[in-house]
Each structure stands twice: as C-alpha cells, then as structure tokens.
C-alpha cells in the first residue's frame, strides 16, 4: 500500500461485501432452519394413514388430513374454472384489443392497487358478497319481499341444489380465492402475451385472419407455456392462503370431504358426489394446519408440522411443474 488512505477504503469495501453476503445468507439460513425444524417435528407423524384419515379431536395420533386434501383440491379446481378464463380474457383485452386506451390505463392502475390489498380484505368481500350476499336472502329481507316467498336456493335436475346465498360452501371459498388470484393471473398472462413478437400478429393479420383468429390460433398457442406457468404459480399462492378462507367460513374441524368423495376413483363412480361437492362444506390444508397449531396440546403441534410438510410438498411440486414447463418451452420455441 503506497497510499495509507486506500487501505481503509479497501477494508471498508471488504466489510461491506461481507455484510451484504451475510444478509443474503442469513435469509437462506432462516429458510433452512425453518424447513429442518418442521421436518424434524413432523416426519414421525407422516404416514399413509395421515393422508387417508379424518381429523381427530381426542387422540392426536389418529388425526389425518383427508378432509383438507380434498377441500384444497376442490378449491383449486373451482378457482381454475373461475379465475383462468376471466384472467386470461382480461389480459387479452388489455394486451391485444385496447391500444393504450384510457380505460385500459385505469384497469392497469387498478390491478396494481388490487395486488396490494391484504388477503383478509378479500375474505371480508367474500364473506359479505358470497357467503351472506348482504343478507338479502334472509327472512323478511329484500328477496322475500320481491319474490313473495322465502328463497333458499335454486333447484335443478339430477338433485343439484345451489343454496342462496352461497353460505360457507366450497364455491364461496373458490370464488373468493379467484378474486384474490385474478390480478396475479392477469399480470402473468400479460407478460406471456407480450413475449410473443408483434411480427407473428402482423403475419397472421396480413394473411387475412381476423383479430380473434390471430389471438386464438397464433398468439395464445405461442404464449401458452408462459400463461400456464403464471397460473400454476398463482395457484400455489392460493393453496396456502388461510386468512380469506377463515373469513368465508372454512370449517376448522370437519370429518367429511366435499361430496363425500374420499378416493380419486370415486370421482368416476360417484357423479352425484362430484356435482354436490362445490356446494358442500369444506376445510382446507392451511386451515387444518392453523387449527392444529393453535391447540394447546403439544401432540397437535407436532401434527401441524406433518400437515405443513404435506402442504409444502404440494407447493414445491406445483412450483417444480411451473419451472419444468417454462424450461421446456424455452427449448422448443425459437423465433
């Protein structure tokens, strides 16, 4: 060192680099500790019985996650049905139809604000609109005065009964989660659509295809991997959501699955159950974890760890699938 000042500066630089490195690693260290502690506590309770039996209030050793697994499954299926068409449609409108119009700008700003709304507020929205529908179906309220008699729901053929208001059914939960993930799906789809080069659209339009034909036959297929990745990632967020589901009345203790479908095979053999499942009571994996975690008994807290392992494995599988699809599509597509 010829200049003594440089020595100090150098030391400070090294310190700073180590501090930044330490910060990054401390976050990763925390993640590792979290996963290890949960694995440590939960693995002994993991078994096939844990996945195939119902919750138990008296003997924690017998408690299982079956109701939560099926509840989360139905929530996800219905959320896909509601949120994906609407989310993709909205993104198509914003990217392909509205050429930077005033309305599109308003929607765009609105989307970024919606993404910042706490999930519990969505829960309150769901509680008021879907579960209770402002109480207009209750005795002596608006609907009864308009229709002339008390309305309990809509009855359809094959014994399909849709309760009104939707009450604390799977469909209320799924609609709430749909509203929650909609901004995420829209933004992810927009990005996927934007990655399709304009020349593809120009070529298609120049060949005489209409706007919709261009979107349906060229833009959507080309951006599909990106869209699917975005959808899976947003669902992996939805599957861990707890607060909004508590608000819309997911049961904390339930010894039944939606539509009484307890094995995948029953999806085929019990069509009536499949039809009734969306309008049945439910619980979900994170709700069961929450319920176990707040029990005073230590044994239940260990069960919560086992529940978390199942939940995290499902999450990792979803994330892995999303990464797989993304990597695969990057190999195949070349413009």
């Amino acid at each position, binding site marked *: 060192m010829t200049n003594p000042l440089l020595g100090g*500066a150098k030391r400070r*630089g090294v310190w700073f680099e180590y501090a*930044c*490195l330490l*910060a*990054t690693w*401390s*976050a*990763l260290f*925390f*993640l590792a500790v*979290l996963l290890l*502690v*949960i694995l440590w506590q939960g693995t002994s309770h993991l078994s096939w019985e844990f996945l195939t039996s119902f919750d138990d209030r008296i003997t924690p050793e017998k408690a299982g996650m079956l109701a939560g697994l099926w509840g989360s499954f139905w929530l996800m299926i219905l959320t896909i049905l509601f949120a994906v*068409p*609407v989310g993709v*449609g*909205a993104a198509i*409108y914003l990217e*392909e*139809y509205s050429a930077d119009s005033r309305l599109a700008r*308003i*929607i765009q700003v*609105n989307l*970024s*604000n919606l993404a*910042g*709304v*706490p*999930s519990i*507020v969505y*829960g*309150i*929205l769901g509680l*008021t*609109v879907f579960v*209770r529908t*402002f*109480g*207009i179906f209750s005795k002596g*309220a608006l609907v009864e005065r308009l229709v002339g008699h008390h309305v309990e729901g809509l009855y359809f053929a094959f014994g399909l009964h849709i309760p009104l208001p939707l009450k604390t059914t799977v469909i209320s939960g799924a609609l709430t989660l749909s509203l929650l993930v909609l901004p995420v799906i*829209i933004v992810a789809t927009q990005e996927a659509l934007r990655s399709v080069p304009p020349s593809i659209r120009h070529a298609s339009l120049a060949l*005489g295809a*209409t706007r*919709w034909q261009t979107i349906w036959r060229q833009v959507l297929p080309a951006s599909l991997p990106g869209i699917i990745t975005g959808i899976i990632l947003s669902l992996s*967020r939805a599957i*861990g959501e*707890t*607060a909004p589901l*508590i*608000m819309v009345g997911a049961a904390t203790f339930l010894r039944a699955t939606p539509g009484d479908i307890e094995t995948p095979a029953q999806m085929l053999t019990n069509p009536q159950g499949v039809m009734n499942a969306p309008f049945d009571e439910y619980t979900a994996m*994170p709700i069961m*974890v*929450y319920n176990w*975690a707040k029990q005073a008994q230590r044994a239940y807290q260990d069960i919560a760890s086992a529940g*978390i392992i199942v*939940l*995290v494995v499902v*999450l990792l599988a979803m*994330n892995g699938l999303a990464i797989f699809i993304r990597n695969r599509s990057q190999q195949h597509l070349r413009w």
Partner: protein
Amino acid sequence: MEKLPTTSESIPTDGLFRRSSWSRFVESQIQNVMLLCASLSILTTVGIVFVLLNESVYNVTGGTAFFQEISPWKFLTGTKWHWDSGDFGVWPLLTSTLQVALIGGLVSIPLGLASAVYLSEYATPRTRRIIKPTLELLAGIPTVVYGYFALIFITPYVLRPLFGLVGLEVGVFNGLSAGIVVGIMIIPMVASLSEDAIRAVPQSLREAAYALGSNRFDVSARVVVPAAFSGIMAACLLAISRAIGETMAVVIAGGQNTSGLSVNPLREVFTMTSYIVNVSSSDVEAGSLEYKSLYAVALTLFCMTLTMNILSQWIMRRFRETYQ
C-alpha cells in the same frame, strides 16, 4: 363486402370474403366479452369499497352501519377496545399493527436491501441464478407456516434464551416473534423490487465511477444505491404495507392482547388483522355491533395499505431518475 376481382378461379377465395356481417358481429362480441373480463377487476375494487363502506359508514342494504352507532371520532381517538362494554377505540389495534410492521420493516429492509446489492453488484451470474429462486421460496411459503414457526421455535428457542440473559420475560405469544417472521417473509419482496431498481441504473454510471478510481463499495453504496433510491423507497413502502396487512403469522404468534394500549413487543399484541380473524371465527351474529366493527377495522386497514401503495407508486413516478 364487395366481391373482389380475382384473376383465376383456382385461387381459393373464401378467405377474402369471410368477414360477413355475422363474423364481424362475433368478432365484436368476443371483444366485448374480453372487456367484461377486464372490468371485473374494477368491479372487485368497487365491491371491496362498497362492502366496507356499506357496513361501516352508511348502510344501504338494510340495517345501520357501524359509524352510525359509534362516532368516528371516538373510534379514531379512543384508546380502549372492549366490545362488550362498547368501547371501540382503534388505537390499541393500531399500535399493535404498527409495532409488528415496524419490527417487520427493521428485519426486512436492511436484509432485503443488502441481498439486492449483493445479488446485483457482487454475485456472479451463476450464484445469482441459484440464490435468487431460493430466496423467492421464502415468499412462497404459506404465512400460516411462518406463524407456526414463530410460535414453536423463535419464541421458545431464540427469544426466550436471548432475553433471558438480560432477565426479561418473553410471553408465549408476543409481537416480536410475529414481527420477525413477518419481516423474513417479505425479504424476497424488498430484495426483488430493490434489485429491479438497482438494475435500472445504467451501467455507464458504474463504469464512470470505477474510472474515477472508486472501489466496489463506493460504487454500490455511493453511486448505485442513491441513484436507485426512489425505487428502493417504493419497495420499502410496499413491504411495510404488506406487513400491515399480514394476518396468519400475527394471529398464531402474536396472540390477542385485550388489555388495551401496549407497546411492549415481548407481550401479546392484537393487530387489526388478528381482530378480524378472531371476530369472524367466533360466533358473532351478523348485524351485531361487534360484527360491524369488523368492517370498520377492515376499512381502516384498507385505507392504510392503499395509501401506502399509492404513495409508493407516486414516489416511483415522481422521483425516478431518468438517464439517457
């Protein structure tokens, strides 16, 4: 459409005449359906605002709203929250919420910012490719897991021994453990938003600083971070807003302190979000004052987070440094 002249009959021409009035109609209807989908996001916002205002400020669907029974002044200035005696002062909830958010910010902002600086300025591309997705995993873990972890690990095995050294007692449920996990779960958010801001600083600025003889520390801490300051500020605001709205970790690890105003992070807290969860999971009758208080609290929460989000967007726009 007029029939276009064709030179040869062998050329398939049906493509040219496809735009009949029917398919034009279908095209326009498809566009309308897409517009409808897009407007659903606006409808959601309108729905949230309507629901919150309807039950808390002025009720239009039958019944009275919360602020028609409890004066908003009492709500906003009261320091007691006892629904059974009719005391609805929001300050105990507010101080708990801010306490958790502050601890969360103190954890997440330095760590997140330092990670962002490390990832963008120091890490090799290969390290970055591995560390970044791993860091994102922190954001993907459900919040209920964080709450559980704070309750069974952080409080008994980290905070208790630590504060035991100085003779302080830590409650089973405490604001500090909740704040710490909230902070950790938003590290990825601070890191990735700050990193975006840092990456937006043009390379020429760094090169100029190096050319003038600066070392990496000078470049990062004195050139890049100040240049990205607006983006970093916006990231911090968004992080605090997330921490304010965070629910499950606080519900599980923070407990529900009903004793009134408390600023001790080693004791139980009772945030706005955990109040909402507690009321909705107890058997409260729809239409009762307690039920309606839930909407008033949610409205306060919504206003706070919305203000911070808008503020952060404004800072991004207003103070963005533009470079050629």
